[in-house]
């Protein structure tokens, strides 16, 4: 083959890498062979045949590529072949670190999101319109924050487990939806005001408790989403309860330390929220981990078994 047909074959071989892994494993070799045969025959026939081949392939390739990717995603969403394996606890350290960094970035990032939004969005103007806009913005901002948090959470979980990439994105998607719903409810201003006025007395005694109770609803949805994705409906409520308790403890301790930090008088401007976030992250992860270990060990992971031929890994 001359230079141009050889170049065509090389480019085509490269393009085949864009197919989903499963499809590649099954058909890539055959497709390469068929393409080489087609190119050789076109070379023998003439330039017109070669250009025709190139035209048809380039026209069809992106469409078929999209069809295959769509078909893979459809399989993920239909949950037909989601398999997940959980590594031993000691192997989860990297995942925990990833989660910690993710939480820091997302929480800090979204906290200061309003600084980069146009200021006219927040300027008081016409009474009820301003209130409505504030409510919607508030709900959307916190929902976005939690959705990102959910995404980070699931991607971090995937780092500490042998969850397939498709299952990981499925989990992330579920988590995002679950947290969006949960947070939109919790952060929606009228509901929040109702809760805050209801527990106004508590705040005089323990300011952290009100927020911690609110956070429980975040935790409920977060846990439910994760449980649903990781183990199906069977584990949904257990993860939900664990999430609720972890969020409660995380927020309660985090908010308390935050209050103490402010009242200590020696805090530096700009450090209060990071202190809260770090405390929340550490307490939430510790609380969730301990709770999960205490009662999840016996109940949730009862059906975990060692995967044959793959020592050190487990499958739910």
């Amino acid at each position, binding site marked *: 083959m001359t230079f141009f047909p050889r170049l065509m074959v090389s480019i085509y071989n490269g393009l085949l890498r864009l197919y989903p892994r499963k499809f590649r494993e099954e058909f890539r070799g055959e497709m390469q062979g*068929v393409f080489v045969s087609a190119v*050789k025959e076109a070379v023998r026939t003439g330039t017109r045949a070669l250009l025709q081949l190139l035209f048809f392939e380039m*026209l069809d*390739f992106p469409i078929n590529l999209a069809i295959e990717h769509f078909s893979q995603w459809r399989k993920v969403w239909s949950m037909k072949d989601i398999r997940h394996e959980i590594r031993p606890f000691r192997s989860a350290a990297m995942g925990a670190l990833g989660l910690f960094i993710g939480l820091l970035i997302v929480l800090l990032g979204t906290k200061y999101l309003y600084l980069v939004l146009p200021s006219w969005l927040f300027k008081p103007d016409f009474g009820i319109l301003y209130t409505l806009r504030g409510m919607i913005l508030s709900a959307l901002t916190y929902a976005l924050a939690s959705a990102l948090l959910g995404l980070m959470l699931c991607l971090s979980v995937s780092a500490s487990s042998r969850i397939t990439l498709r299952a990981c994105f499925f989990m992330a998607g579920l988590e995002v939806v679950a947290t969006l719903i949960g947070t939109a409810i919790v952060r929606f201003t009228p509901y929040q005001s109702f809760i805050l006025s209801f527990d106004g007395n508590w705040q005089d005694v323990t300011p952290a408790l009100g927020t911690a109770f609110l956070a429980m609803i975040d935790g409920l949805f977060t846990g439910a989403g994760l449980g649903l994705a990781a183990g199906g409906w069977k584990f949904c409520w257990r993860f939900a309860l664990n999430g609720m308790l972890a969020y409660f403890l995380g927020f309660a301790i985090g908010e308390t330390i935050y209050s103490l930090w402010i009242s200590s008088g020696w805090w530096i401007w700009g450090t209060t929220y990071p202190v809260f976030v770090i405390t929340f992250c550490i307490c939430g992860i510790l609380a969730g981990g301990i709770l999960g270990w205490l009662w999840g060990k016996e109940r949730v992971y009862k059906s975990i078994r060692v995967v044959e031929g793959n020592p050190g890994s487990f499958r739910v």
Partner: protein
Amino acid sequence: MKVAKPDDFQPLSEMTLYILVSLAPCPLHGYAIAKKVRALSEERVILSVSTLYTILKRLLEDGWIERVGEDAEPDESGHPRKTYALTECGQRILAAEKTRLHSLLAIVEKQTIGEGI
């Protein structure tokens, strides 16, 4: 649960029909299928490699065709040539499509007799 019948898959797309027809007499490998489809359709249907394998994958998943082995002679890139054949299900679907096309043709002929069409 509803059990699918061959009629449920009709009408077949032109490319799918050509692939099934090309495999009806004997098993073929990918490149031979593409060439035969081109010949059967008198150069009208030209299957690109990506389209051919997208359809073959679907037909394999649906159980209409199956892999029956490998050619002794490897292809131009050195990979073994896998051959495909119609399954019993594929044969039933092809037969149902043939019946449908026959009846369609009969209707067309009946309606156009004496019309000079």
